[in-house]
């Protein structure tokens, strides 16, 4: 709490011990006050007052003890069904605005070009999550060193891609290009696949390189969720993901067809298998969002796929010229990379699913002992995996809920006593 290079609040040194709130360890001010406070005698007035007091305070104290779970709850003092009030699922569904703000914060945290804005968005997001989830689960172990290192590498790759793009703002051109771009890139991938299947390897290399370059240079900012998109349930991120990953799979499928036509059935089968496996792994990651795991695409994965696909097709063009029958084994790097990325996707999804399951089981076991279970667990604001828990029973409020008048209101005061 101490600030660096701090000085006293009163530079002239006029503050007293009391004015700065410093208390000595022994709180006895003087002998007279001590004698008065320590006097154990009771006069008739004290006895009468103390005999009357229990009647006034008994119910109150019994309620406090029952709410704290220290004594069995009396019949009259039934606690309100707090979880009915704190049904986070319903609350979040009702508060669409909050959800959109959180998504926007996530987007800014992940995609903003300004480091200051990224940092600020992270802070605000953590605060927002803290406010939403009443029982903030603290003390969760941080991710391993390897995971943190991979995140750092991924962030550096993301910044490198961000430097390549020419669109960094929402202009009319970007608004037009954003929905068009994904279909153009998919069409280019389909063209490249057809060319590879037909044995036009050089032309296919040009198209694949153009697709990768176009995707990097004209990458639009994150598409906004407009009203009609929300109404029809259209998720532009999902559409972009499908087009992008389908395009990669199409290129590999074209490569496979070319290899088959060139008399390499084994290589063709391996390449086709890698394409299907990569697509399946990606779809499993995207589908995990429905289970509450927010796992964005890794930029390392995108870079690896771009380099591998372009490099493999270019190598085939250099070695084979026309037809893929005489292509070098170097071409198999592309399906190998796609398969490795698919394995990484599955491992990543399984890792976070397992971590969430661990937290859920820990919360469930805590619920069996004392019912002290938070309403929700934030696994990590970095991963933004939010797990909502609904408990059947009631539990005491962590802090007084002002809206329901369940606790005393706090008042704004100043140090001079004015309110």
């Amino acid at each position, binding site marked *: *709490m*101490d*600030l660096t*290079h*701090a*000085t*006293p*609040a009163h530079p002239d040194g006029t503050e007293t011990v009391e*004015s*700065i*709130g*410093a*208390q000595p*360890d*022994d*709180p006895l001010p003087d002998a007279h006050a001590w004698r008065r*406070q*320590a006097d*154990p*005698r*009771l006069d008739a007035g*004290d*006895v009468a*007052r*103390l*005999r009357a007091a*229990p009647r006034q*305070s*008994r119910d*109150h*104290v019994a309620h*406090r*003890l029952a*709410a*704290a*779970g*220290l*004594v069995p709850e009396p019949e009259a003092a039934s606690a309100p069904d707090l979880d009915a009030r704190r049904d986070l699922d319903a609350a979040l569904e009702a508060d669409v605005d909050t959800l959109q703000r959180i998504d926007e914060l996530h987007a800014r945290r992940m995609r903003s070009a300004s480091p200051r804005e990224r940092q600020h968005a992270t802070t605000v997001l953590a605060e927002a999550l803290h406010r939403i989830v009443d029982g*903030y689960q*603290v*003390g969760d172990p941080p991710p391993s060193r390897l995971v943190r290192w991979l995140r750092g590498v991924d962030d550096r790759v993301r910044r490198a891609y961000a430097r390549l793009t020419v669109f960094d703002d929402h202009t009319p051109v970007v608004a037009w290009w954003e929905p068009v771009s994904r279909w153009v890139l998919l069409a280019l991938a389909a063209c490249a696949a057809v060319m590879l299947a037909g044995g036009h390897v050089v032309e296919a290399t040009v198209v694949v390189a153009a697709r990768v370059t176009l995707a990097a240079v004209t990458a639009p900012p994150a598409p906004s969720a407009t009203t009609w998109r929300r109404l029809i349930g259209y998720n532009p991120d999902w559409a972009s993901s499908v087009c992008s990953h389908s395009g990669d799979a199409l290129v590999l499928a074209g490569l496979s067809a070319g290899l088959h036509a060139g008399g390499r059935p084994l290589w063709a089968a391996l390449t086709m298998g890698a394409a299907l496996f990569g697509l399946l792994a990606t779809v499993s990651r995207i589908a995990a969002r429905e289970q509450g795991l927010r796992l964005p695409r890794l930029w390392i994965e995108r870079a690896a796929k771009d380099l591998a696909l372009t490099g493999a097709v270019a190598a085939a063009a250099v070695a084979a010229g026309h037809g893929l029958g005489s292509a070098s084994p170097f071409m198999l790097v592309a399906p190998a990379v796609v398969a490795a990325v698919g394995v990484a996707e599955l491992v990543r999804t399984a890792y976070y699913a397992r971590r969430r399951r661990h937290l859920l089981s820990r919360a469930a076991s*805590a619920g069996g002992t*004392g019912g*002290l279970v938070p309403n929700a667990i934030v696994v990590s604001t970095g991963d933004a995996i939010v797990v909502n828990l609904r408990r059947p029973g009631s*539990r*005491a409020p*962590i*802090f*007084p809920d002002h809206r329901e008048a369940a*606790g*005393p*209101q*706090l*008042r*704004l*005061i*100043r*140090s001079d*006593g004015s*309110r």
Partner: protein
Amino acid sequence: MAVDTPTRRQTERVAPELAVAKLELRDIALLAAYEILTEAEQRTYRVHYRRALAAGERIVDEHATTPDRPLPEIARLFFSFTWVFPNLGLAGPFFAGESGPLKDAVLLAAREAIVLGVPARLDFHARLWDHICDPDRRAEAARFYVRHKPLHAFPPSAEREAVERYCGRIDALMATAECVPALLATWAIERNPDRLRDLSRNDVKHKHGLFEQRHMAPFLGMAPNTLAQSLKRLRVRFGEEMRLLWQIERTDDYDGKQER
């Protein structure tokens, strides 16, 4: 001047209010609170009271120096030393430093322990928590704690207006933050470490009434470790917000100078 040289026997003896700690807590409660029972209740518990009185006298005879007051007052003094005053650092600011409400709370808790069988310490802590949650008392305490020295430290280059804004912000934070009163209470306990040491002696170790953090946790609806971590986080958040505030002040100053 004559100097008393204590014999070996005398040095083993302690003050009567410390010696009664060897009694059962229920017996101490009976001795302290018997006077405030109604007449009917006194008739009901007279046998128990006499038994506690006899046990107390025996303990005082064996272990204490010569008592200068009757046993019920000694029992109340015991509660003052181990239940009331250790909590003054905690709850003192909530009562403007007066120990009267705490002494009342102790005696009422002792009475309820006799009549209803509720553990005296639990009842006392519930009463203490009830007082602490009272908005008027809380405002009183917040007014005290906002003068806490480290909170009102600031960089040497700060201007007067910035300092005033800063102090006002702290006041508002302290008074409206959700961590009140747990944060304030924990601060108070930590600022009186000697009390904890005094109460860790064998005789009173399990009989003192200091409202420690682990006792506060159930009233906040938390596990003790969760409360400790939450308080740590809240303090860090306080610190971060203060630092952020200074950054904003500095940036405002810098921007203003640039514009000029």
